[in-house]
């Protein structure tokens, strides 16, 4: 049986030489966390099942810096590496794959041009394409929306792009299904309402998407404790839980978290 995965996420600011890992709160305030390849190495040693690098600067000139980060990381980290941020074409994806990435994460560029998903999947396989969705609750009853019940009231989920700065009007659940049909191998689902809040994962959102698609869903946004990971694995079919701050700044490391989960019956790799 496949293990539930624990994935640390490195939000990378590539505007400085070599890059640096930062973490925002609700997509805004920024805190410095470390050097990308060093943190990746530490998380690998701690037992990370995979590592995600997101270029939050997402500018074309900085692709070279990301390529350097991935090359350096893949010399000493032997778990899958996923890389995202500003990749708009198969050619750009190729640079990152050639540096040692196993998966590419696309968000804004796929919302603007969905065929990008198929193009990368055709060349590198479905497993190599992760579609990242940043979803925001909208407490409004609108026609054609997938309305989900939550303890806070019924809502639909709107996809955001450009790092949470703009909204698309697109229903996140419908988009996840479409991404799957276009060849996405995985959905990285971030709750914008929870990201950086330390309130735990958005369970209704994760549950709704994981029920709707057959591909793995990675839950993201709001994790501040092993209890939050336990909750998302017990209450939803999420294949993986992604977190940043808990590992960057918290008192928990990946090894402790996995032991905690294993003791409570979650199938994890320890």
């Amino acid at each position, binding site marked *: *049986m*496949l*293990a539930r*995965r624990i994935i640390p996420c490195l939000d990378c600011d590539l505007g400085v030489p070599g890059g640096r890992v930062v973490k925002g709160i609700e997509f805004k305030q920024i805190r410095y966390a470390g050097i990308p390849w060093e943190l990746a190495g530490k998380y*690998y040693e701690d*037992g990370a*099942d995979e590592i995600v690098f997101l270029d939050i600067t997402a500018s074309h000139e900085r692709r070279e810096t990301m390529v350097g980060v991935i*090359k350096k990381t*893949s*010399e*000493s980290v*032997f*778990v*899958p590496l996923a890389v995202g941020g500003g990749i708009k074409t198969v050619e750009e994806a190729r640079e990152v*794959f*050639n*540096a*040692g990435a*196993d998966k590419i994460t696309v968000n804004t560029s796929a919302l603007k041009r969905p065929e990008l998903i198929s193009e990368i999947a055709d060349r*590198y*396989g*479905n*497993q190599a394409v992760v579609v990242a969705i940043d979803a925001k609750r909208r407490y409004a009853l609108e026609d054609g929306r997938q309305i989900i019940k939550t303890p806070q009231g019924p809502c639909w989920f709107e996809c955001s792009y450009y790092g949470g700065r703009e909204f698309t009007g697109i229903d996140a659940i419908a988009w996840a299904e479409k991404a799957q049909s276009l060849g996405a*191998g*995985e959905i990285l689902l971030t709750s914008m309402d929870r990201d950086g809040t330390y309130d735990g994962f958005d369970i209704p959102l994760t549950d709704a998407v994981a029920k709707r698609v*057959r*591909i*793995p869903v990675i839950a993201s946004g709001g994790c501040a404790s092993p209890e939050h990971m336990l909750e998302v694995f017990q209450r939803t079919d999420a*294949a*993986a839980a992604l977190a940043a701050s808990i590992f960057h700044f918290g008192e928990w490391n990946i090894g402790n978290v996995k032991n905690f989960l294993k003791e409570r019956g979650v199938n994890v*790799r320890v």
Partner: protein
Amino acid sequence: MIAIVDYGMGNLFSIYNALNRVSANPKIIDDPESLASADGIVVPGVGAFGRCMDRLSRFEGALLQAFLEGTPMLGICIGLQVLFEQSEESPGSKGLGWIKGNVVRLPEGVMIPQMGWNSLSIIRPVEMLEGIAEGDMFYFVHSYYGVPTDKSVISATTHHGVDVTAAIAKDNLFATQFHPEKSGVKGLKILENFVRSTRC
């Protein structure tokens, strides 16, 4: 020298780095002639069976020669599947056929591709699995799996809807459906075992 066969199917960086990490002397080889001087040969692979075989065909003779001469060989992922006679993925394409049997699709109702960490059941402990315990987890990414006619070549399985061939051992040949180069410390251990076998 350990040869990593480069037949134009994707990223060899990971396996190169992983072999480097276990103090091998890996070299990416794109001409069949150079295989003759290799102490060990790694056949990696991603992509579809047919496309892999098309591109691997120019190495077919040199690989067979090395196999028969007893050069330790390691197939990874599609590098395991191409050892079989054929695959449901690419009807009409012939595999290397060193292992009798076919490659079939994972059953309906399970997640396809199987992607993630799954545990090994050790069927036949072989030198390549030294230091690996029952239940240790490895990283899999695949939609098809090999079903050998002679079950005795299976050295480990995993479970994904059905029992899935995870590792095959036959003479100087070892092959894994999972990716040892992406399977953390346990994966490196298998690569270390392979490198050691090339020095005996």
